[in-house]
Structure formats: C-alpha cells, structure tokens
C-alpha cells in the first residue's frame, strides 16, 4: 500500500498562501478581538482571553502535566500577549501568534525546571535525535494530572503513556483530543498543512497506542 495524502481521502489541502486558502471559522473571532485590543479596547482583550483560555490551558497542560502549572502558564502567556499587543500585525491570524507565545512560555518553564531533555540516541519510539526542542522529551513532574481520577487505573495508564511522548506529539494530541479541534483549526494554529497535521496525528496516536498497549485492547464500551 502506498503512503496516503489528505486529498486522496476526501480532505482538500488548504494551506496559508494557497490559492483557495480559507482559515477555520474559529480563527476569525479571536483575530478580530485581538485587532480591537491592539487599538486599545481592553474589553475586547478580556473577551478574547475568555474565549481561548480553555484551549490554552489544555495545550499548556499537555506540555507541563500539572493542572496548576498549566493554569499559571496560560495566564502568563496572556499577560505576555497583552504586553506585546503592539507587535501583532493586522491581517495575520491570532491563534498561531498566540500559540507561539504559549509554547515558548511552557518551554521556558520546562527548561528552568530542568525538565526539557534532548532525546537519547536510543529514543524510545525510534525517533532520531534532533536539536528542535519540539522533538525533545519532557521529564515527568510526578503525579498524573487526572483531575480527580487518580484512582482510575485507566487514567493513570493514559497519562503514563502520554508523558512518554515528545513535546511535538503532546501538542497535537492536546489540540485534537482535549480541545477537539478540527484538522483545519489545528493546521491554522500550528501553521502547518493539513497533510502534516494528519501525519503528525497519526504517528503521535500510534506511539500513544503502543504505550497504552492492553488498555486499548480491552473490551469496553465505545
């Protein structure tokens, strides 16, 4: 069987710069609010924060694990966003810009705590070593962030498996699984083509499934 491409399965390529490019509708409102905030509308910024903070929280938690740290880092990213509002260029999408701020905030936190580790030569899932921090390991900070499900064996297994993944895998899985974003919205947020979203998602899920092993083989209701 040959490798697949998104358009072959009925999902058209839709990337920035392409002739027929149109961003996900969910991108438009945050962008408009950010433009208003840049022009001095403080209420618009508050509405923007209320709209996207759930997504920011899930992505940050995917990176750092702890719920409390994720909350603080999301808040910090919003403060940085507000301080940098003058550098936001009208015409660009807000979410990719904000996502870069959030990602850098989380990486700084992990680096400061010595938890961002370059993958070893015998990387767990056959990945090559690379200098791109997105491919690095994030060291586990302790208990799994299962929000009240600590006693649930399945939840613990999930987070154990999740914590074995690279920063890049965690990022895309958080956007899809915890925030349930569509492929186009993920592509817009990460500024990558849909084909890359599908490929990354496929590999990240396969690694997570390998890590979960028997927990996905069990016969339980879907």
């Amino acid at each position: 069987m040959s490798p697949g491409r998104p358009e072959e399965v009925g999902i058209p390529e839709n990337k920035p710069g392409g002739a027929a490019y149109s961003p996900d509708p969910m991108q438009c409102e945050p962008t408009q609010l950010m433009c208003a905030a840049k022009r001095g509308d403080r209420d618009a910024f508050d509405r923007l924060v209320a709209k996207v903070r759930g997504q920011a929280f899930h992505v940050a938690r995917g990176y750092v694990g702890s719920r409390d740290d994720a909350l603080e880092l999301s808040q910090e990213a919003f403060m940085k966003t507000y301080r940098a509002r003058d550098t936001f260029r009208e015409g660009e999408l807000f979410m990719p810009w904000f996502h870069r701020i959030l990602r850098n905030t989380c990486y700084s936190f992990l680096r400061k705590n010595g938890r961002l580790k370059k993958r070893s030569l015998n990387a767990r899932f056959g990945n090559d070593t690379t200098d791109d921090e997105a491919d690095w390991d994030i060291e586990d900070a302790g208990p799994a962030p299962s929000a009240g499900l600590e006693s649930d064996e399945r939840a613990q297994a999930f987070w154990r498996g999740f914590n074995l993944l690279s920063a890049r895998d965690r990022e895309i899985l958080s956007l899809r699984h915890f925030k349930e974003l569509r492929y186009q919205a993920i592509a817009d947020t990460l500024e990558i083509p849909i084909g890359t979203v599908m490929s990354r998602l496929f590999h990240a899920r396969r690694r997570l499934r390998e890590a979960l092993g028997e927990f996905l083989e069990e016969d339980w209701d879907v």
Partner: protein
Amino acid sequence: MNREPTKEQLAAMAYADGELDDAARAEFEQLMATRPDLAREVAQLQRLELLSRQVAGPEPKDTEWERLSHDHVQRAGGNVGLGLLALGSLGLIVWCVLATLAGGLSPLGKASLLGLLAGSLLLLFSAVRARLRTRPFDPYTEVKR
C-alpha cells in the same frame, strides 16, 4: 518504525475523527465492511478518543482564573519581601564579620565566631540549593486537600 500512513489508514483516522464528507464517509463504510483490519483500527481510535475525553477533566472555572490574577499580586509581594529579607540577612552577616575582625576578641574567639557564621551560611546555601534541585520532582507539591 516511522512508516508513513497508507491511504486507508489516513481514511480510517479521518473517519474516526468525523472529518470525512458524506460521500467519502459512505465510501469508507463500504470498504470497512470488507476489511476487518480497518474496522479494528477505527474502533481503537474511537476508544482512544473516548479515553482522552474521560481523563481530560473539566476546564478551570472562572473563579480559578480570577484567583490567579490575585495570586500574581500576592506572589510579587512575596518575592519582593523574600528578596529584601535575603539582602538584609546578607548585610547583617557581612557587618558581623567586619565587627568581629575589628573587635577586641582573641584570635580563637574570632576564628570560632567566623566559623559559626560561615557554617550557618553554608548550611543555608545547601538547603536552598537542594530544595531548588528537587522541587520539580517533588510529588507533594501537587497534593490537594
């Protein structure tokens, strides 16, 4: 290990994620009826989706976000206080050392006092260093009452 996904595997993933349009979905369902491996793939992806939703937990409430903005002021105050305390302690130690050296104590008294001060400083430094190194891996920072 990092084999690229096949067209069928991508279709199975897009089907499980609800990304296919009506025509592509119907076409894939027909294919799936003859391919148990694809049906198993879809079932596993759906289980993974369900499991993720179960473990994701609720998003923070508005009150939690509000508390954070208050915490920020509290923490800034705490940091300034701690900084001043550390600076004051250091100044006091330096003053003690200078006063000891200039004072009328015997050489043995001076040496003892300096040893006491140096030991206290070293112990404080070691304790802070050990705490900073182990804190990221301390599971008890996550305990909730």
